[in-house]
């Protein structure tokens, strides 16, 4: 009962704290989540993935994002706000499921540390900033209950079929978001196999061939199977072009190991993780779930380095693992110290620690929420009425070199194109400011990929085929500009303009006036008034 109070209290306080933050920043979103959200909106509007929107990412995140997209459309609220609330719901769901497993299926003697792990699962979300909503975060949130459940399963706990089914499906969704996540899941299974050694027959029938695994696998099969039923053009574009092109040219953005691991903005995560590992090792004999989480955090390093881009969000599983481990490790340290000094058993410590934890969490949450409120109140504001919503948003959340140009020259739903070899800076402004993408190419990362292939790969029929898409992409851009008449076109001066120059791309700007020639490396073209289309 005390454990339940503690769990409910912690989840409620942290969720409310996050709710305050989400509500104070209704338009805040990162570039990748904004892009995925835009894709989801297009799908909700009847668009086809890889036909009406081009991006290399597998479509599961877009399907998932249709939920906030629909809610936003129905309730006329900013889609960014709906998305952030959706993420908050995922946080609550994940933490509630984990807490339920901790309370009902894991030893009560470990309750303090295990609840601290649940606390860590919520707490790491507060540090993500603009990476809030990345697939890595969603994976952590969806996979964590599965990990806890698998641990309980190996310990011999009785698992209800419905519970196993729900947790399994959620984990399946998480793992399918990115193929790299399979490595994390395999590491955890490997750890559990070695940690809880048992007879092969028992292992197979009672630990491996179980409902949550079947559910996760079933989801993966359904997800993979759905590709078979997609229209042929979708399959051609995705499997015939985007996947082979990115498989050969994704290294375009590769960095060095030193930059991935040791740069000042990267190393903190790994130092925290190492500290967490040491703490976990110190207490893993008493609290074995810490070892499992150590395996999870550490396994996050491999996909991050495999991708080799050094992008901060890719280490979120490692960061989450580090924060969770540190929370669990510190709780273990406190609990063991109390036990040593006062000779209180874990059950005796729980009421006092519950009160202290709830008071501290509530106190810090109120203080930080108050600080955030003051800061938001003091900062310049943006009236969301301009976007057809009520309320205000901090200007800082939408601030970019392009915001004013968009606001001054376009109305909501106007088509706009950013021709850029990265997701930013087109996103998040397009999503935040309720604009419509003026082209099926939401960005032109693919052109950098093709340039890389041209420079690095040995010529051959497949390479020639892939490179022939360069012209096709240029003509698709031209087609979209002619058809959609975007009110603004932002053309990246280098390298995107150079990529498109051989295809006489300037011809497409005959109805446009160049209003800026170098704003953050972009030229801005505005549609001449006579040609402007209505809303």
């Amino acid at each position, binding site marked *: 009962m005390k454990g339940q109070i503690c769990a409910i209290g912690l989840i409620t306080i942290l969720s409310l704290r996050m709710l305050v933050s989400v509500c104070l920043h209704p338009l805040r979103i990162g570039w990748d989540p904004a892009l995925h959200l835009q894709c989801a909106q297009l799908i909700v509007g009847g668009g086809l993935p890889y036909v009406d929107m081009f991006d290399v990412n597998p479509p599961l995140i877009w399907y998932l994002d249709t939920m906030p997209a629909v809610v936003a459309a129905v309730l006329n609220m900013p889609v960014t706000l709906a998305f952030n609330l959706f993420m908050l719901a995922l946080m609550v769901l994940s933490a509630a499921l984990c807490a339920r497993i901790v309370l009902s299926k894991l030893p009560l003697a470990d309750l303090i540390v295990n609840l601290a792990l649940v606390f860590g699962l919520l707490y790491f979300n507060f540090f993500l900033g603009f990476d809030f909503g990345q697939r890595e975060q969603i994976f952590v949130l969806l996979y964590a209950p599965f990990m806890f459940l698998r641990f309980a399963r190996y310990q011999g706990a009785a698992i209800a079929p419905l519970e196993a089914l729900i947790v399994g499906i959620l984990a399946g969704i998480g793992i399918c978001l990115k193929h790299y996540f399979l490595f994390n899941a395999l*590491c955890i299974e*490997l*750890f559990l196999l*070695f*940690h809880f*050694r048992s*007879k092969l027959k028992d292992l197979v029938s009672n630990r491996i061939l179980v409902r949550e695994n079947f559910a996760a696998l079933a989801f993966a099969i359904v997800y993979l199977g759905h590709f078979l039923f997609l229209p042929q053009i979708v399959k051609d574009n995705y499997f015939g072009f985007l996947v082979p092109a990115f498989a050969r040219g994704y*290294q375009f953005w*590769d*960095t*060095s*190991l*030193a*930059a991935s*691991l*040791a*740069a*000042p903005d990267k*190393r903190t995560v*790994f*130092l925290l*993780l*190492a*500290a967490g*590992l*040491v703490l976990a*090792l*110190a*207490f*893993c*004999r*008493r609290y*074995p779930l810490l*070892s499992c989480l*150590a*395996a999870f955090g*550490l*396994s996050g*390093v*491999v996909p991050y*380095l*495999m991708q*080799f881009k*050094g992008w901060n969000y890719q280490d979120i599983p490692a960061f989450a693992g580090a924060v969770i481990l540190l929370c669990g490790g510190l709780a273990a340290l406190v609990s*063991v110290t109390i*036990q*040593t000094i006062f000779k209180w058993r874990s059950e005796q410590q729980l009421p006092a620690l519950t009160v202290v934890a709830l008071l501290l969490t509530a106190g810090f949450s109120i203080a930080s929420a108050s600080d955030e409120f003051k800061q938001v109140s003091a900062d310049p504001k943006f009236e969301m009425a301009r976007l057809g919503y009520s309320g205000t948003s901090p200007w800082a959340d939408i601030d970019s070199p392009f915001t004013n140009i968009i606001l001054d020259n376009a109305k909501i739903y106007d088509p706009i194109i950013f021709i850029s070899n990265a997701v930013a800076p087109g996103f998040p402004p397009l999503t935040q400011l309720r604009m419509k993408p003026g082209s099926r190419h939401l960005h032109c990362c693919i052109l950098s990929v093709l340039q890389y292939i041209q420079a690095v790969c040995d010529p051959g029929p497949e390479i020639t085929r892939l490179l022939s898409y360069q012209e096709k992409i240029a003509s698709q851009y031209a087609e979209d500009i002619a058809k959609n008449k975007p009110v603004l076109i932002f053309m990246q001066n280098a390298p995107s303009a150079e990529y498109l120059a051989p295809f006489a791309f300037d011809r497409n700007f005959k109805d446009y006036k160049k209003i800026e020639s170098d704003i953050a490396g972009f030229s801005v073209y505005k549609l001449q008034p006579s040609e402007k289309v209505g809303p």
Partner: protein
Amino acid sequence: MNKLILFFSCLLLLSWCGSMGGYFAAHQVLSPAEPAMHISCASMILEGAEPYIDFVDNATPLLLYLFTMPVLLSKLCYLHPVLIFNLLIVLLTIGIFSVVIFAIRQSGRKGLPVLFYLPALTVSLVICQAYFLADFGQESMVFMLLFLPYLLERYLTSTGAREPEQKPNSTLRKIIAGVLAAFGLLLNPVFLLAAPAVELICLTGLGDVTVGKLKRRYLGVELYACLAALLFTGAVIYFSAPLVVVTYLGPITSLNWLSYDYFYDNLGFVGKSPDRRDLIYAFVVFFIMALPAAGRCLLVRLMCAMSALGFIWLVCSGTVYTYQAFIMTAFAICAFCLALSRYLRSMRFTHRVARLLGRAGEQAGRLYIWQRKQPQLKTALVVALPVLCFAAVNYFSLKNVASDQYFSLVNINYYGFGLKHDLSFFSDVVEKNSEAKDLVWIFSQHARPGFPLITQLRRRPGYLVWGFPLHTLKILHERSTPAQAASLVQFEALMYDHLRSELNSVRPPKLILIEDSEIWESLKAAGICATVQDKYESLEPLSPMNGEEIERHPPFEYIGHRVSFSAFKLRR
């Protein structure tokens, strides 16, 4: 059977050490850059120079003083200090292994579980040294060797596997383990993190802590010895050379800290730092595989913790050279091998496998009974096999070496020979334009390519042993706070004064190689380059990208841009 495990472990390690001895006897001047640089520094110390005052390096004082040992021996027996150093590390490996064996043998029945770990420890030690042979003798390898007996002693103490009665030689063994660990910790400030981590894990490994338990199973002799040795060594160094300690803790530590703080931005581009992701993948997989056993075995936990600290060291290094991944990888391999031995022992085999294993056990038993009757054979094997390995490896190392590849070390006043392929880049220019004991400046961002070349050819580095402060000081001026800049103003002025006085001395550098990068820019800004251009004759620029150089010398890890070097020869 226990003695059989012991015997084969000893045989494996001795054979490995014999092989290494044979290898280094063939490659008498082969060394990684950093140990060779410390050898040069130690030579200067033996000539009366004071670290950080008469020459600038960023290693800890103890490390530099420890390196005087091979140099001193080299002076006594006229063998190249690099050879002596490599052989000393081989001997250290044997010595450390002996301490481990003594610890196991003297811990009686309670130490029996450790005995089963012995093959795993031996195999992992051999794997680590073999895999990192190109980085043999790096401080990380020395640290691992020095710290290993301490970890084992802490494990034995914490698990209560103490001798039935405290024998004097067991106390001595624990003291040795403690002192060695203290030396290991003082090799690099980051290594000091190992002490609290190990102690926390040992403390929590006790379970419910009571005063009695603390006394019996935590406060071991090795802990006291380690703490005492830490304090004593620190005090001895401080009181014998206070200025050395003050300078190390002052400007040198500031520089080290700033080097950590100010990341070298050029490393952001692909290929600009060694891509050793494979080692990190191995660390992750080994660590995760060892984690289940870590919950049950303190020794595996300690190895895992050391591996995690090795990961910290790699991250903090900023440059991620292969040798900086040694601690992480080596302890991960140890942890994995220990865990594996545990898994194998606890495995539940099927009837058929059990029968096969039973037969193997019978054969092993027969072998054991047979070898007990042949004590001479055991002795002969222990002596002969390492010797055979020594001879075989030595022979095969030199088998395909052309006769023109050899050069005599007599020219530099040592006995023995070297192989031209073992020399570092730019050896031709240095050999041609300078003689033994001449002052040679080779300034670059990193220890390579100045070292091991200067040590191999017995040249002397100047006041600035390598160019590490130049880059940091340049960034300092660009990015630092006024307080940070002020703290190093005096050091910077002093450093450039030293360089100028060295240039204008009676015996100036015979040859100067300066990397055409920020190093050149820094020296130019300080007016050093103008003096050099005035007093020296310009030679053809040298490039580490030169195909011939790459072919003739062992490749080396190099970070940042592979820029060329300006070369200058003293005008006669």
